[in-house]
């Protein structure tokens, strides 16, 4: 017994030695990508007095939450977060519904023109955002949609619809016909077959699409900057950028607090839905 354990231990240690460069480099990589968040978090806990000394430390001498209180209570950042949430949920809801219908139509019903339609969906995803700004600005101005959420929601669809439709189309192509046909024989209409047969099977993919859409529209800055003008309608990224610009003296510790607040929900979502996001991104790109 003892004769066996000793060699296996040395082997373990040798394996660990061989592995240590790998471990060290992965820790270094993780640090390089995550340390900035820690630094910004530490700065956000500084009081403006300590911050103005310009002597940064890894952890402030007198940590305080005053920046968080300030931006949430006085600068309307709480409202901006709510606005962002509203916009992102609307974009995700529309994207899931519209791309599911479109994918079903493309895969199951359309014979001629399917490839062309899919090609259009994919190409639309590469359309330059700033080329949309002028025409949409004029359109929203004449229709009275300027400075409203629907304007931003509509424009945000350029981030989400191409990826979502592409993902769901390639998924539906793998689903067997037979289940739907069985439902049809049992007297379901086509839409009932979609709702009661296809949607439950595709549910995981629909969740992936919803998560990706939420993240992508939560990220938007360009459209909010261009189409929203009243501060009470600002989305969170827009509000954060102007937080630093509206004061006589810029105190970055306040924008630091905003960075932390916006990052937390995204980080949570990434940890919870990591696998989904990765599959969604890679399936969307590599097919």
């Amino acid at each position, binding site marked *: 017994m003892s004769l066996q354990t000793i060699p296996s231990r040395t082997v373990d240690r040798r394996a660990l030695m061989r592995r240590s460069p790998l471990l060290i480099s992965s820790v270094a990589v*993780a640090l390089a990508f995550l340390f900035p968040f820690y630094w910004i978090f530490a700065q956000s806990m500084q009081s403006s007095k300590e911050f103005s000394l310009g002597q940064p430390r890894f952890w402030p001498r007198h940590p305080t939450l005053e920046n968080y209180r300030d931006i949430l209570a006085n600068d309307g950042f709480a409202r901006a977060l709510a606005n962002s949430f509203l916009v992102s949920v609307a974009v995700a809801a529309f994207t899931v519904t519209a791309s599911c219908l479109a994918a079903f139509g493309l895969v199951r019903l359309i014979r001629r023109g399917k490839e062309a*339609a899919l090609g259009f969906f994919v190409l639309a995803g590469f*359309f*330059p955002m700033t080329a949309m700004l*002028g025409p949409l600005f004029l359109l929203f101005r004449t229709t009275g949609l300027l400075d409203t959420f629907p304007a931003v929601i509509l424009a945000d669809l350029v981030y989400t619809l191409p990826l979502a439709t592409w993902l769901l189309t390639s998924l539906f192509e793998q689903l067997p016909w037979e289940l739907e046909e069985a439902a049809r024989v049992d007297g379901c209409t086509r839409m009932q077959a979609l709702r009661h047969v296809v949607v439950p099977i595709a549910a995981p993919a629909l969740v992936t699409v919803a998560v990706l859409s939420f993240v992508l529209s939560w990220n938007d800055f360009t459209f909010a900057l261009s189409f929203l003008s009243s501060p009470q309608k600002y989305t969170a990224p827009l509000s954060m950028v102007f937080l*630093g610009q509206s004061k006589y003296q810029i105190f970055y510790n306040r924008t630091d607090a905003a*960075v932390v607040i*916006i990052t937390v929900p995204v980080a949570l979502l990434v940890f919870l839905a990591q696998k989904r996001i990765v599959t969604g991104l890679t399936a969307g790109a590599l097919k």
Partner: protein
Amino acid sequence: MTALATRAKPATSPPPAKIMRRRRREGPWFGWVLVAPAAGALLLITAFPLVYNAMNSVRHVDLLDGSSRPFVGTENYRRLFSEHTFVPALEHTLGFTAVSVTLEVAVGLVLALLLNMPFRGRGLLRASLLIPWAVPTAVAATLWRNMFDRSNGFVDYLLGALHLPGAHVTWLANTWSSWVMVLVTDAWQSTPLVAILLLAGLQSVPAEVYEAGRIDGASRWQSFRYLTWPLLRPALMVAVVFRALSALLIFDVIYVVTGGGPGNSTETLSFVNYHAFLVDNNFGYGGAISISMLITTVMVALLLRRVLAARC
């Protein structure tokens, strides 16, 4: 006998011919109805701007005198080359795209190889790489602007502590260091996506291939060079094209970090396009920039396809 048997079969299961006929009859029309919401929304936000930009680009469109839109021919397009904004922006954009894509694909490949090795905590590492990607670009830009701040930024702190040059420097004051800030921000946010794409490519290489290589006595380098690399090519191509096409459109980082400055030395195509539309409210000139940007994008995409396909 056999004829009877085959004929008897459809009676028990649903007659496929009938279903097929019904599908063909009611199918396509209803299919397009289902596609309409998604396609309609996308047409409205991409095809309409394309056409409207093309129309506006040969006219003078100003918000102040909105009613008349006089036809000006190629004036807006000639302005692209006579004024000192578009051409520098084009150069900046192409230069930035070349440098950032090279950097991100190189680092992304190393990260992907690392993530492809089995070790404990791999999932955690992948998740921590995804967070910079998932954070809004404006947030990434704000974060790095603050990291490079001359009094409270970490870069400054680190360089000062190590007694290296670059400490206590206003990074935004000159062109070169402003571009460094933009590149670092973009690489920090985009390299993870490249790594994830390449990782998917690596994982599609079957283990048997490496097994066979090892039996044939291939060294580690040889197995990378002759097995991994060729099989990784498709994923690499996708990553390069993806990154290049989005690097050409860089806007948020420029707006937040440098504001196009100092002077106009970090202005990109998207930045001058935004400026023409929403700061100058010049929709004719802006339209001309948009059309040129689209042409640039298509040309870069075709060029990349050509180059990458030739190498394969």
